[in-house]
C-alpha cells in the first residue's frame, strides 16, 4: 500500500513545485529583489501578527509533542524557571536568579509577582508539580528526555526551589528552561478535567501571551496576557496558521496575509525574497545531516571501504548545488552554533577547525577501495526519511558519486517513523543520521559518540570521553572532550558529516526582527520583533 504521505510528497514534488514556482514568479505582487526595509520603531506594535507555520500542531503540550513548532507556541505562553536569549545563554524567567551551590545542587529564587494568565499566582507548589510532570516519561515522553535523574526537588523558602541532581550534569542549567524541559503550569488547571494542550482545554502558563483558541491542524490564536509580570507585549494578538504546503504558504505571503512565514524551501528562497518589502533570513537550524557507517555490517567492516565512501562524498557541491548555500559543509557532528553556547563562537569555530578533514577525491577513493576486500565495488542501500525532501536529492548526488568508484547505492524514501525505528538496528551498512535538536544543549554528539551509538561502533576511549563531557561542569572542557571523541569516530570513518542545515524564514513588510538567530523563536521573540512604520 503506498504510504499516503509518501504519495502526497511524491506527487507534490513532481507536479506542484514547478507549477507554482512558475506561477508565483509572475505573481503581480512580486517585484524584482525589492529589499526595502522601512524604519522600525521598537515600541510600536500591531493589532495582529500572523505567522505561517510549515507544519501543523495537534496538541499544545510540549511534554506530549516535542516538535520544534510546539516549542514555538509554548515560548509565547509558558515559562520555565529560566529562559534563553538569542545566543542560547540563560536568562531569568520565573526565577529572578539562580546559583549552583555544588556540582549537583541548583537553587532558584522565584519572582514573587508572577501570575498565570488566569490571574492566579504561580506558587512553588505549581513549579514543583510542573517539574515532576515534565520529567515523567509516561505523561511527558518528550520533555522527560532532558531531565537527568534527580535526588530531590524541594521548596526551600517561600520563593525558593532547590533541585539536587543524582550526578553532575553539563547541561542541567538549560533543563528547567522553556527551550528544553520545563513549562510551568498550574497544578489546579492541569488536574481539572480534560486533556492538557487539547483544543478543548488549551494550556495555562505565565508567559507574555495566553491561548484563546486552538484548532488542531488549522490555527492557534494568542492574546496578550494582561497578568504577565514582564514588559507588556507589543502585539495584541498573535495567530499561528498551519500551512504545511510550501506553495500555499508562498501565495499567502505574497498576498500579505502572513507577517512571518517559516520553512522557506531552499529552491524557492529567491521567489520569496522578491516579494515587496520581504526579508528572507537563513540561519543555522542546528541540524546535523550525515552518513552513519555501521562497522558491524560487511563490507563496511573494512576501514578501506569506509574511507573510500568518506572521500567520495562531495560535500561542497552538495551545499552549493543542491542546498544553494543555505547550509554549511559539516566538518564535525555538533554544529558550531550549539558548541558556542557557553564558550563563544570563536572558540567553537576553532574547536571544529581542529577536527580531521577528509577531502573529496574520487581517485583517492578509488585507490582506497582497491585496497579493500571489495576492490571491484559492491551494492548497498541508503534510506532517507520522507520528512526532509533535501535529503532525497542529496542521497541521489551521493549515490551518483559512489557509482563512479564502483559502489552501487539504491536510494529509498521511507516514512520518518520507519527511518527512526531502523536507526542502529545493526542491519544497515550505510544510513542517514538527520538530527534536528530543538534545544541548544541537545547535542547530536552526546548520542552518536556514546557507548549506545546508532552505528554500533565500539570505542572505549570515545565512549568515556563522551561520558566525561556529559558531566563536565566547565563548558570548554565539555567542548574539548566532544572534539576528541569526534576525531576518533571520524578517523575510523564511522560518520561522514555532510552538512549542517539552515532554516529559512521570511519576514513581511510590516515587521523586522532584531537579534535574529537560531534560537529566535525559543526566546521572548515578539519583544525582539519591531513593527515597521
Amino acid at each position, binding site marked *: 500500500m503506498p504510504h499516503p504521505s509518501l504519495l502526497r510528497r511524491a506527487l507534490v514534488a513532481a507536479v506542484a513545485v514547478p507549477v507554482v514556482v512558475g506561477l508565483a514568479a509572475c505573481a503581480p505582487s512580486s517585484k524584482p529583489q525589492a529589499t526595502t526595509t522601512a524604519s522600525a520603531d521598537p515600541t510600536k506594535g500591531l493589532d495582529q501578527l500572523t505567522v505561517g507555520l510549515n507544519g501543523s500542531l495537534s496538541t499544545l503540550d510540549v511534554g506530549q*509533542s516535542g516538535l520544534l513548532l510546539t516549542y514555538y507556541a509554548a515560548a509565547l505562553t509558558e515559562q520555565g524557571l529560566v529562559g534563553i536569549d538569542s545566543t542560547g545563554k540563560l536568562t531569568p524567567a520565573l526565577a529572578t536568579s539562580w546559583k549552583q551551590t555544588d556540582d549537583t545542587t541548583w537553587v532558584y529564587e522565584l519572582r514573587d509577582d508572577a501570575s498565570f494568565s488566569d490571574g492566579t499566582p504561580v506558587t512553588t507548589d505549581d513549579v514543583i508539580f510542573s517539574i515532576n510532570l515534565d520529567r515523567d516519561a509516561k505523561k511527558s515522553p518528550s520533555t522527560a528526555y532532558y531531565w537527568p535523574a534527580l535526588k530531590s526537588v524541594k521548596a526551600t523558602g517561600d520563593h525558593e526551589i532547590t533541585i539536587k541532581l543524582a550526578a553532575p550534569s553539563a547541561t542541567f542549567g538549560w533543563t528547567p528552561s522553556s527551550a528544553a524541559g520545563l513549562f510551568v503550569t498550574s497544578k489546579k488547571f492541569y488536574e481539572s478535567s480534560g486533556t492538557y494542550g487539547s483544543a478543548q482545554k488549551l494550556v495555562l502558563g505565565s508567559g507574555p501571551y495566553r491561548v484563546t483558541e486552538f484548532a488542531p491542524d488549522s490555527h492557534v490564536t494568542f492574546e496578550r496576557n494582561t497578568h504577565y509580570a514582564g514588559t507588556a507585549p507589543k502585539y495584541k494578538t498573535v495567530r499561528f496558521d498551519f500551512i504545511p504546503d510550501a506553495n*500555499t504558504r508562498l501565495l499567502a505571503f505574497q498576498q500579505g496575509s502572513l507577517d512571518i512565514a517559516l520553512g522557506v524551501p531552499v529552491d524557492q528562497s529567491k521567489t520569496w525574497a522578491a516579494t515587496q518589502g520581504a526579508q528572507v533570513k537563513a540561519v543555522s537550524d542546528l541540524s546535523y545531516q550525515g552518513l552513519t557507517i555501521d562497522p558491524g555490517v560487511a563490507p563496511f567492516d573494512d576501514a578501506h571501504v569506509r574511507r573510500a565512501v568518506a572521500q567520495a562524498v562531495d560535500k561542497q557541491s552538495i551545499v552549493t548545488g543542491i542546498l544553494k548555500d543555505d547550509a554549511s559543509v559539516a566538518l564535525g557532528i555538533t554544529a558550531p552554533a550549539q558548541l558556542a553556547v557557553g564558550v563563544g563562537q570563536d572558540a567553537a569555530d576553532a574547536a571544529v577547525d581542529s577536527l580531521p578533514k577528509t577531502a573529496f577525491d574520487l581517485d583517492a577513493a578509488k585507490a582506497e577501495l582497491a585496497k579493500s576486500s571489495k576492490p571491484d565495488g559492491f551494492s548497498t542501500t541508503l534510506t532517507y526519511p520522507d520528512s526532509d525532501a533535501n535529503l532525497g536529492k542529496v542521497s541521489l548526488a551521493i549515490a551518483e558519486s559512489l557509482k563512479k568508484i564502483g559502489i552501487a547505492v539504491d536510494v529509498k524514501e521511507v516514512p520518518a517513523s520507519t527511518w527512526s525505528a531502523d536507526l542502529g538496528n545493526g542491519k544497515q551498512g550505510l544510513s542517514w543520521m538527520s538530527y534536528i535538536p530543538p534545544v541548544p544543549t541537545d547535542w547530536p554528539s552526546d548520542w552518536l559518540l556514546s557507548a549506545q551509538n546508532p552505528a554500533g561502533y565500539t570505542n572505549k576511549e570515545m565512549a568515556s570521553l563522551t561520558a566525561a563531557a556529559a558531566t563536565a561542569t566547565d563548558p570548554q572542557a565539555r567542548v574539548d572532550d566532544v572534539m576528541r571523541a569526534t576525531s576518533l569516530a571520524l578517523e575510523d570513518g564511522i560518520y561522514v558529516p555532510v552538512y549542517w542545515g539552515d532554516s529559512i524564514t521570511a519576514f513581511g513588510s510590516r515587521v523586522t526582527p532584531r537579534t535574529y538567530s537560531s534560537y529566535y523563536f525559543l526566546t521572548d521573540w515578539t519583544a525582539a520583533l519591531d513593527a515597521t512604520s
Partner: protein
Amino acid sequence: MSVLAFVGRRVAALAAMLVVLSFLVFALLYLAPGDLVHSLLGARAVTPQAEAAIRAQYHLDDPFWVQYLRWLGAALHGDFGTSVRTGTPVAQMLEGRVGVTVTLAAIAGVLAVGVGVPLGVRAARRRGSFEDRAITSASVVGVSAPGFAVGLVLLYVFAVMLGWFPLYGVGDGGLDRLWHLALPAAALAVGVGALVVKVTRTAVLRELDQDYVTFARSRGLSGARVLRLYLRGAAVPIVTSVGLVLASLVGGSILVETTFALPGLGVLLADSITFKDVPVVQAVTLLLATFIGVTTAVVDLFANLADPRVRRAAVAR
C-alpha cells in the same frame, strides 16, 4: 422485498464489514515498519527505561490478539480510546474535523453531479458535434489532473489574481466556512465531475440507441417526454457510478486538505498512519467505511426504486 428488510440486511452487512475492516487495519498497522516508541521519542537516544515505560503504557508487549481484542472490546462500548500522538480522546479529535470533510465532500459532490450530469447528457445528445468533443476533451483533462494541482491553479487565479476567495483555512463557521471551502471543493469536484460527465454520456448514448427511444420519437412524443424516458433508463448506471465516485471524494480530500490547509479527516488520517497512532486510524477508517457503506446502500436503494427491472429481479430472488 420491503425497504425495511433491505435496510436491515444492509446494516447487518455493514456491521460485519466494519469488524473485518477494523481487524485488517489493525493488523496492517501492527505489521507496518516503524514503531510507536520512536514516533513518540523521535530520532534520538532512547534509554531502556523510557522505552519500557512507553511499551508498558501502550501494552506494546502484549500479543497481537490481546491488543486487538482490547481495542475491539472498548470500541464496542463506544470508547475509541486516546490518541497516542496527542494524548487527547479520539472523539474529541474528530470533533469539528468531520464537519469540515463532510461539508467539503458535500459541496464537491453537489458541484460534480450538478455540473457533470447535465454536461454528460448534453454531450450525448449532441454526439459527434464540436460541443460534444469539447466536453469530452475537458473531462479527460479533468480526470487526469491531480486535485492538488488543480487546487493550486484555482488558488492562483481566484484567490491571488482575482481575490474572490480566501487562500487557505476554514473560516469562522456559517457562510464564512462555505466561502472558505468553495475553492477546495471545486478543486476536489473537477476530477470527480469529469468522471460523472463520462459515465453520464456513455449511459445516455446507450439509451439513445435503444429502439424505445426511436419508437417514442416516431410516435411524436414531445422532446421533454422522450428525455424523461431515456433519462430514467440511464439513471441506474449513472446513480450507481456517482455513488462510488462520491465515496472516493473523501479519499481524494487528503491532497486538497493539504493544499488549502484545512483541518479535515484526510490530513488527520495521513498523519496518524505515519505516526502509527492506532486508535485514531481505526476510528477514522471506520467512520469513512461507514460513510461509504451508507452511500452505496442509498444508491442501491435508489437504483431499486428507479428501475422496475431491478425491482422485479429483487422480488424474484
